[in-house]
């Protein structure tokens, strides 16, 4: 039976010239696990809002056609009724949580719809979402992944048949992302919920979803079973969707004629093992390591301890006697799960947080008695959330601000140059907040390098971006390498780590558990288990074929595995 049926849906936002959804027809079966993919602005979120009745009941606009949820026409129903049939989790899910404690929030909807057993329903939903035992906690005690599960529990508590999630794992580290998808699989398989996700991470689609829906320009291009859908490499890439790395590698090899088989392209590592089993491994020529004299130390941590005040009980220790050196010219990636202390480490370097014990020094001088303002020429921090860096009403003014107040000669010319470099010249007068995710990120990078700092710190520069924008930012970062000397990136994005960094520092529980090149870090099996970092899929694929292989990109993979036996 179809739980969702859409017939010839047309929808235009109020004031918009073009319809966002045009002649859209769709059927979703009960119990499906559907991924919706498509370009930015192809109408994915709009479609989801049409399913839960926000369109047309809450957001007006031109609406024609028919949306049936479980046989009920959304226009003849109302938002409250539909909320009990369709649960929705936003991309910015933390804004969806309105109550201070976990159980309170999970049962809030049920209370509002006057279910007498609202607390019981809240508890059940929490259990289904894997949050048992946290009922009494306050929401700011939860990690990002747990907050997302709570938002999900809030939707699940009303017992809807359909659950819609908008980019559920965009902000999460791989461990938390797996957790979310495991919970979703459980809800789908055990409790019979129909799950619809908007998702860019095709690796997760391959592992968990049953069907894929490709949207293009507000229309359904096709809906196919997952393994068929991911075969359409060209079509997906045309929409800026990148199939799993294993699929891309196989596709590239097939095109080059390295493998000639009529078989389907593999979409998971398991399938890849079969497909690539005929290939032989050629160790790449190892470049001789340049043994330079050690360059000067730029930042050093000596016996640094740091803890946060907590609302109740003892302070929470983040670092206990940490020692770390960062040398000139290094490109460092700082990795570790949510809450491992990455942001804290960065804030200590710019003097925003003072260590309780020990010293942090910058260019050989302790920063203990310096003010944050005085350090800004030497070191600069780009926040995870670019909106917090926009303090003026246009990005031109934002980029110029630091140079202008310091009276740097030719600040206006330099600003123009930076705008051009980050391809923002046309947007110079816009308020940063009103730009797209990628533009905001580029603007924040431009602000970060404005003063030509000796050390640049970037906190999660690719979080919350779709894959196409992420690639774009990665190109920008690559491009920036020659204008910045030393840079540190805190990130969960292992593709970025592998392509960009020459030194990787792994933090876990406030200590450095690994520190070295990508080969040294990723070849250690114990780390993956202990810290929950995961190399890119293609690395795992290569390892599965040949334990000695160390491939980080698709190109390296196709170079290493070539002729047939």
């Amino acid at each position, binding site marked *: 039976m179809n739980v969702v049926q859409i017939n010839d849906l047309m929808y235009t936002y109020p004031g918009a010239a073009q319809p966002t959804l045009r002649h859209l027809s769709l059927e979703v079966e009960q119990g499906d696990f559907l991924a919706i993919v498509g370009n930015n602005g192809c109408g994915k979120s709009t479609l989801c809002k049409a399913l839960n009745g926000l369109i047309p009941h809450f957001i007006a606009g031109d609406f024609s056609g028919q949306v049936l949820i479980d046989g009920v026409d959304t226009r003849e129903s109302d938002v409250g009724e539909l909320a009990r049939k369709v649960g929705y989790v936003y991309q910015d899910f933390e804004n969806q949580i309105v109550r*201070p404690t976990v159980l309170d929030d999970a049962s809030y909807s049920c209370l*509002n719809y006057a279910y*007498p057993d609202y607390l019981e329903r809240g508890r059940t939903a929490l259990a289904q979402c894997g949050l048992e035992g946290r009922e009494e906690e306050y929401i*700011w005690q939860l990690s990002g992944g747990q907050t997302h599960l709570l938002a999900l529990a809030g939707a699940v508590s009303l017992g809807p048949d359909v659950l819609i999630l908008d980019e559920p794992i965009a902000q999460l580290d791989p461990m938390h992302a797996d957790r979310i998808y495991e919970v979703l699989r459980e809800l789908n398989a055990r409790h019979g919920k129909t799950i619809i996700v908007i998702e860019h991470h095709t690796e997760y689609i391959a592992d968990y979803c049953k069907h894929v829906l490709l949207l293009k320009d507000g229309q359904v291009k096709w809906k196919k079973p997952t393994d068929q859908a991911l075969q359409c490499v060209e079509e997906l890439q045309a929409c800026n969707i990148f199939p799993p790395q294993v699929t891309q590698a196989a596709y590239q090899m097939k095109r080059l004629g390295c493998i000639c088989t009529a078989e389907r392209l593999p979409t998971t590592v398991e399938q890849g093992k079969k497909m690539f089993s005929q290939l032989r491994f050629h160790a790449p020529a190892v470049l001789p390591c340049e043994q330079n004299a050690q360059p000067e130390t730029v930042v050093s941590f000596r016996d640094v301890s740091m803890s946060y005040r907590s609302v109740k009980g003892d302070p929470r220790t983040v670092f206990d006697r940490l020692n770390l050196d960062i040398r000139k010219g290094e490109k460092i990636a700082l990795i570790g799960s949510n809450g491992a202390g990455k942001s804290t480490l960065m804030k200590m370097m710019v003097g925003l947080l003072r260590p309780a014990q020990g010293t942090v020094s910058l260019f050989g001088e302790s920063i203990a008695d310096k003010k944050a*303002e005085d350090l800004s020429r030497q070191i600069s921090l780009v926040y995870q959330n670019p909106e*917090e860096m926009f303090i003026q009403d246009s990005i031109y003014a934002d980029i110029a601000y630091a140079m202008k*107040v*310091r009276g740097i000669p030719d600040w206006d010319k330099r600003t123009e140059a930076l705008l051009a470099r980050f391809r923002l010249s046309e947007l110079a007068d816009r308020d940063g907040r009103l730009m797209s995710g990628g533009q905001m990120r580029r603007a924040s990078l431009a602000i970060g390098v404005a*003063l030509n700092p000796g050390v640049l710190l970037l906190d999660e520069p690719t979080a919350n971006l779709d894959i196409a924008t992420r690639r774009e930012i990665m190109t920008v970062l690559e491009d920036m390498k020659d204008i910045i000397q030393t840079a540190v990136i805190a990130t969960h994005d292992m593709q970025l780590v592998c392509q960009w960094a020459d030194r990787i520092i792994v933090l876990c529980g406030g200590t450095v558990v690994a520190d070295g090149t990508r080969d040294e870090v990723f070849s250690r099996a114990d780390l993956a288990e202990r810290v929950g970092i995961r190399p890119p899929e293609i690395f795992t694929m290569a390892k599965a074929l040949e334990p000695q292989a160390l491939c980080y990109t698709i190109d390296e993979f196709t170079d290493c595995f070539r002729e047939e036996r």
Partner: protein
Amino acid sequence: MERLSDKLSENILSKFSMDFLRNQVLKNAYGNDDTVIAALDPRILLAWYLFFGLVPWFVNELPFLLGCFLLVMVTTILARVAGLVLFLFALGVFSQTGYLFLVTLLFGGDASAVMPLLILTLKVATISLASVTVFSGLDPDRLSNGLMWYGCPERLSFSISYAYRMLPMLMEEFQNVLLSYRLRGNPPAHETLRGKVRYLIYQVKIIMQSFYPLMLNTAKRSRTTVEALELRGYRYAAVNQTVKRMKLAALKVSYNDFLFLAISFLCVALSVLCCTLF
């Protein structure tokens, strides 16, 4: 003097940090939910507050005021109110009356002014401490439920608990915006006293300027919240009497509440007795 002004300009941004403020606010709201006061029924506490918040204004007998003051002092201690709130309270009360006393002396008054000022101070202190006990001793949810029972609109009680849910986030964001100003700004040199004054003014200025981006960011984020509230049935609940009854069903008057009222009554009665005796 030099050291003091040095410290003052340092303090505003570094020692007295946003982090500290945030922690104190949270502590105040949720850090003391296991105290005697927090366990009392909010309705009883609000009624109690009505007495101690109003009556002292109209009474001028010293023993009575002193009795009330001692009582609310004990309840404040029992409520384990956060340090910052008490500090602000002390600063407010004593700067006010201290200033009045100075002005009295300046315009030819003498030590006889002490008595009326003491009475005024006691009144203000009693009322403030009673407010502190009720409003920071109770956690926001219990407080808003109590208010709802007395017929305050649902919207008000929702706002109170929502504000507390948002405050930590807002303060963190405010802190970051402020840091943006600090990191990118170029503060005036502050070696001389003149420079220090200018530095202080600069700091106050950027604190004020930081509110502008904060408000825009909040406006942006509230779009999702508004839609989510709609989905989560907020509007239904506001007009539904059953929901209100369900929310208030958790309120129960217990033995402790009567004990609390009885002790308060005894204190007041004793102080009234003292008034008539002396």
